[in-house]
Every structure is written in C-alpha cells, then in structure tokens.
C-alpha cells in the first residue's frame, strides 16, 4: 500500500506542479508579454476580451483587464484549421512540435518549488523528482529541444524553415557550452548538484547574489563569500544571457527572425502544432527563469533569516510554510519573466555573426577563466599566500592571453598588396 500511495502522491505532484503551475504560466506570460510591451510602447494592449455579459442582458461586459485574452488565444489556436502542406515529410513534421514542448515540460521535475510540506507527520518535498544531478538533468533534457526545432525546419521542406532550423541548431549547441561552464563556479561553491539542497543552503546561508545572512542571522558576509560575489555575478550574467540564447528569445531570436525568415522553423505550421512551438518557447522561458532563480536568487527562499520561521508555521499537524515558499518562488519567477519581456522590447536583435562571436569568443573564454577564479577563491583558505599570489598571477596572465587571442581573432586581416 505505501508504494501505491507514493505513486499517487507523485502523480498529484506531477499534475499539480506541471499542469497547474508551469503550464498556466505560459498563457499568463503571453498575456504579460502583450500588456507589458504595450505599456512600454505607450499603447493599451489587450484589455477588451472578457465575458460578454451584455449579450445576457447585463449593463456592462466583464473585462477584468482583458485577462480572458489567453483563453481566447488558446481557443482560437485550437479551432483553427490544422493544415499540413502536401510537400512536407509528414512523420517528422508531426513529431517536431511534440519534441519541442515535451523536454521543456520534463525539466520541470527537478525544480524545487518550495520547502517541504508535512501533513500528518509525513513530509512531502515540493519537487517531483529530487535528483542529485539537478542542473545536469536540466541541460541534458533541454538540449533535446534542438531536435524538435531542427526536425521542424528540415521536414517542412521550405527554405525559410530550414535556415531557421539550422540557425537554431548552431545557436543552441554553441550556447550550451557557455551554459554548462558558467554554472561550474556555483556548483563548486555549494559542492552539490541537488537543487533542493542548493536552495536549502541558500535559505540558510544567504542567496548566492545576496549573502546577507548566515545560519539564520543577518550580517555582512565574510571576506571569502564577499570575494565569491565576483565570479558569482559573472556566472549569473553569462548564464542569464545564455538562457536567452537557448530559449530563442530576443535579442537572440534569429531562428524565427521575421524580417529574414518569415516565421523561421515554424513557418509552415498552423493551429495547435504552431501553438505547441509557441508553448515550448514560453515553457523554456519559464524553466530558464526557474533555474536562474533557483541557482542564483535563492529559489523558494524568502531570505533574511525568515525561512526557518516560515517552515515552522502550522495549523494542527499541517505545516503549510512550503506553500508560502511556493508563492515566493512564483513571485521571483514572474519578476524574472517580466525581465525577459523587458529585454525583448528593449534590446534589438543581434546579427548572426555577432551572436556566434559573443558565444564562442567572449562567453566561452570568460566562463573558463571564471571557473579558475572561483576555484582560487574557494580554495584560498587551505593555501599559502605564495600559492594564492602565484595562482592570481597565473590567472591574470591567462586572462590577458585569452583577451589578446580574442582581439587577434577579431582583427581584420590586412590586405596584402602585390
């Protein structure tokens, strides 16, 4: 019986966290995207879609800021004609949207949404699968998305789709390297790959980018933690920007660059198949934000030493502190999604060569140097001053060499005249 109960609890978690938390975030972020870009551009955005109460004899329609808009969008996409062009490779054409959206949703399972809740003494973690290889699992699964996009581009049998697919493949593979390298300092710092433990650690000892408390007591960080802010911030920057590139968001949305490629890899898709790509893109954005929040901004932690107190809140045997943490996590998530949107409507699209140069020439090297810097700072207490000084000199030398190589690689070849 306990096994069956375990499975039931797991199913409840999957349904609750994936379909009641992450999936609704997709239409909500679409709505936010539309409203937020509207106010940025001095417009109003969708504010009309509501329940047409006037049809039922009421005086006024129910608008509620147009919040029904995502529902209307969804209904529209469902009811549209699902058109499959005759010239496509059908099996792959049909598979591609699923391959895009499924990995994005699978990665949800390792994200800790809140601190454990306990009912009748049994503790339940607010994470579907508490894996010990969290970030690696996320990278492994999310890199499968590239198959969906590549297959969509290739099977559509259209030049725009193909170019979009190829761009996407190159871009995602390139940025996966920066993505992986950039979080090595973080993992070195925590010495753990389990996301739940990383978050718990942050709740106890301060967020990675906000180490203002330790062991539940507010206070300035010690020298090592303070110094580690430097590699942590570099890692945060590279990781965030790489997430933009991984999710094909502006300013790196070259695979679906409308001015050049009509719609990119989903040019030939319509109706729900198109909606799946759309959902996949936004789900990836949600997961990316969740990962950033989890790794750098304390995950579900409210911070400032309040987490322990929240954990202890209970009504009878029901400890509901986890739900408050869930709320905190969602607030952080939505703020980060808004940041994604703000970036989209602020920064213009990069050129493809600029994108590749940024990935390979700058971020790759910077992430590598950052790993050494972080390692040096973490290992400093066990080392003698001479070794630290030597290491620092070596690091500076290596950095200088890398910068020199980058500059040389950028310099235009001089035209030789015969």
């Amino acid at each position: 019986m306990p096994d069956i109960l375990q499975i039931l609890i797991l199913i409840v978690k999957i349904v609750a966290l994936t379909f009641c938390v992450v999936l609704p975030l997709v239409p909500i972020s679409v709505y936010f995207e539309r409203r937020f870009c509207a106010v940025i551009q001095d417009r109003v955005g969708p504010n009309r879609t509501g329940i047409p109460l006037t049809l039922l004899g009421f005086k006024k329609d129910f608008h509620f800021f147009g919040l029904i808009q995502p529902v209307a969008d969804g209904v529209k996409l469902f009811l549209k004609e699902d058109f499959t062009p005759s010239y496509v490779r059908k099996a792959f054409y049909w598979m591609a949207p699923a391959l895009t959206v499924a990995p994005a949703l699978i990665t949800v399972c390792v994200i800790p949404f809140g601190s454990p809740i306990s009912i009748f003494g049994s503790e339940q973690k607010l994470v579907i699968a508490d894996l010990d290889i969290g970030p690696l699992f996320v990278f492994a699964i999310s890199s499968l998305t590239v198959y969906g996009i590549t297959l969509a581009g290739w099977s559509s049998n259209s030049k725009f789709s193909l170019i979009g697919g190829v761009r996407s493949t190159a871009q995602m593979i390139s940025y996966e390297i920066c993505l992986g390298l950039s979080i090595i300092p973080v993992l070195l710092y925590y010495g753990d790959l389990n996301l739940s433990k990383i978050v718990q650690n942050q709740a106890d000892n301060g967020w990675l980018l906000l180490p203002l408390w330790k062991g539940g007591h507010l206070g300035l960080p010690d020298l090592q933690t303070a110094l580690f802010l430097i590699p942590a911030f570099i890692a945060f920057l590279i990781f965030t920007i790489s997430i933009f590139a991984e999710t094909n968001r502006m300013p790196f949305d070259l695979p679906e660059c409308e001015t050049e490629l009509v719609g990119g890899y989903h040019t030939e898709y319509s109706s729900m198949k198109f909606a799946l790509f759309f959902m996949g893109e936004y789900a990836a954005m949600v997961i990316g934000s969740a990962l950033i929040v989890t790794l750098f901004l304390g995950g579900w932690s409210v911070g400032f030493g309040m987490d322990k107190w929240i954990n202890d809140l209970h009504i009878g045997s029901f400890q509901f502190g986890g739900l408050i943490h869930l709320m905190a996590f969602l607030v952080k998530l939505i703020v980060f999604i808004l940041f994604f949107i703000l970036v989209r409507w602020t920064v213009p699209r990069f050129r493809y060569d600029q994108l590749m140069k940024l990935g390979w020439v700058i971020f790759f090297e910077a992430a590598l140097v950052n790993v050494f810097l972080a390692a040096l700072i973490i290992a400093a207490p066990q080392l003698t001053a001479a070794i630290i000084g030597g290491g620092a000199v070596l690091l500076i030398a290596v950095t200088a060499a890398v910068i020199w190589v980058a500059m040389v690689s950028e310099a235009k070849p001089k035209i030789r005249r015969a």
Partner: protein
Amino acid sequence: MAVVKLQRPKLNAGEKIYFGAILKGFFITMSHAVRSLLGKTTGAKDLASSGLGVTMQFPEQRWDNQLPEYYRGAPTLVIDEQGRERCVSCQLCEFICPPKAIRITPSEIPTDDKWAKVEKRPIEFDIDMIRCIYCGMCEEVCPEQAIFLRKDYLVTGHTRAEMVHDKKKLYEIGGIRTGLVNKWNELK
C-alpha cells in the same frame, strides 16, 4: 547606380561592451512603462486617451470633432441648391480610380426634365467600398464638383453587396452642397 560605401562607426571600448547602451535602453523602456501605468503617458491629453498609453478607446471615445478639414472619408455624390444632381456621368472618376472601385452606367436625361439641357446623368453609380482606398482622386478629377469625400469613416456591412454604395445611398450620405460653381445655370 553609384556604389556608396558606408563606414561603420568606430566604437570605443565602452561602447563595444554594449552594457551602457543596454542600460540606457532599459531606462527608456521602463520610464515609458511606468509613465503609462501611472496614467501619465506623454501626449495622452491631446488624444483624449485615458493616459494608459496614447490609445483612444474607440467605440466609446470618438475623434469626430477633431477630424481635420482635409479628412478623407467615404466618397459621396452631392446635389446643389437647385436640387440638380451634379454628376453628368463623364466617367473620369471611374477612369482615375486606382482600385477600380467606381462603376457608372451613363444615361440620357429625358427631354421633359427640368435639366434636360444637361443631357447626361448616371443611371447607376456604384462605389464598392471594399475596394475604395479613400485616395480622393475622384474628388480631384471631377470636372463638375459632384463627388466629394465626406468625413464618414464607419463604413461597415455584413455582406459584400451591402458594402457597394449605389446611387441612392451616395446621394443620401452626400446631401446638398452649396456654394459650388453653377455653369449649367446660365441662359441656354
């Protein structure tokens, strides 16, 4: 064609990192967003909008009074003070109409008519408002001052046939226009 070689601007190190420019961009977009959300969008008052953006809430709010004199709405036919239909169906508007929205069937004015000396008038005059692009060429080309673009912009219909304005409808919207040149009034 002459080839113009454009020199990309030389960027200094700070500009090459982009961050300054991106932060500046954030400041601009955020300031617009904040002003919008506070209901203080620049220029909102001139357009009588709520302040959340400059957009006017159309069906409730209308701009009819602010329409400029030169506004080009639906083309119409007019009658002058004497009650004479101005159009003599010269078909110049039909000829000039870029989207070919106008279709005229000319006919002769019967000899017992008061204006028999004008000889010609349209028996059918259709303007397909689905085709019309409101360019005003018809008004400009009309040698008889018979066709004018009015300020009507709400041209709607449920069927394509409804969107074709026939002669009756055109005169109905156009109405009587005074102060036109009356070359047909001299003794003839």
